[in-house]
């Protein structure tokens, strides 16, 4: 059975470590990336179903990741996670095609709900919140 492929990008290693297990438990294949430049390469090589990205990262911003992911595949759902959330940033993200945005700190369950919603919309019927 095909599982949704998910890429999580955050330069803070703790974020990936904390979220990976929960996302895998949902039924996703999860790849963690702390280097946004490497994430852009991964996005070019492989069509991820869901990309979760931080915004404020060194050299490459989450907005660039969002644009790259949407260019690579219009089907990719991009979820923005940020500690610098503002109404303007939220609007910019939506305009550039983000699926959703959530402000840090957040409860892992809130992010999992979004991932489940996105995966179900993409036809992955086996995925469910535990």
């Amino acid at each position: 059975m095909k599982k949704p492929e998910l890429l999580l990008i955050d330069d803070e290693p703790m974020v990936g470590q904390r979220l990976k297990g929960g996302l895998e438990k949902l039924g996703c294949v999860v790849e963690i990336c702390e280097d946004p430049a490497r994430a852009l390469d991964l996005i070019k090589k492989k069509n991820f179903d869901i990309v979760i990205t931080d915004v404020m990262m060194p050299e490459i911003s989450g907005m660039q990741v969002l644009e790259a992911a949407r260019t690579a595949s219009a089907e990719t759902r991009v979820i923005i996670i940020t500690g610098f959330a503002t109404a303007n940033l939220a609007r910019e993200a939506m305009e550039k095609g983000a699926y959703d945005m959530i402000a840090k700190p957040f409860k892992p369950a809130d992010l999992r709900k979004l991932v489940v919603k996105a995966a179900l919309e993409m036809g992955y019927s086996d995925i469910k919140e535990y």
Partner: protein
Amino acid sequence: MSIVAIVSKYADESFKIAEFTALRLGYRLVTMDDLVKTAAKDYHMPEKDLAQVTRDLSLWQHLFLKKKLKLVSLLEHKLCELMANDGIVFCGYLGYPIFKEISHALKVLILADPQTGKSAAADSAMQPDLLSNDGIAGWFEKIYHMDMEDPKLYDLTLNLWQMDIPEAGDIIINTLKQKRFEPMTYSMNCMCNLELACQIKTALVEKLGDVEVKSHDGTVYVYSKVFKKGGRKAAKEVKEDIMRMPGVNYVEVYRERAPFDEIHI
């Protein structure tokens, strides 16, 4: 559903645009009067007191400032509650600090010809205490320390010298279709945070006067000059009071809007 906030000192014209827009979108129309009536009913307060604080500029010289700020805060809290329920078109001059935080709220300024634009006061001989056009702008400036007609505060500025009411309504409806005005998890959470912050501000404003409250997921940040040197006791009391309120997990108090400048108790 998104939110439309129509702000104008021309009460008659802005009401007509709001009514047209709400009808076309199938949204609930909320006017200043509706807000006052709902708040009075829900908070068991005399409607007259709440109405006066939104209408009579001269009251600012007579009533105790903290009391007035509390009434405004109560109305803003009610506005947050109304926004959380459904898509609304709000027509009025209250709540700007709330709307500016919500990415799915389209903020619209309506300008009209001062010679033909009618204020609420011009329309109603029954309510002689209603504010004039300039009175509304003055009220906004007194409360929010901003020029109501500064286009930078809004997403859209519509000038009725150049268009009629249905045209203005159509522009609002078309603008609202843009993806950036769609609700999302962040903006929906913002509304919950703002509702809690307004509730706490209402509880504190009579005690502290000039106070700002922010909240994020149950963590509450209180900013007041009262917490300046010697205000440790006040800060401790405020923390204890707020911690008793439902939905609050943690409280931080600051003497001013500098996030790392905390008074540690």
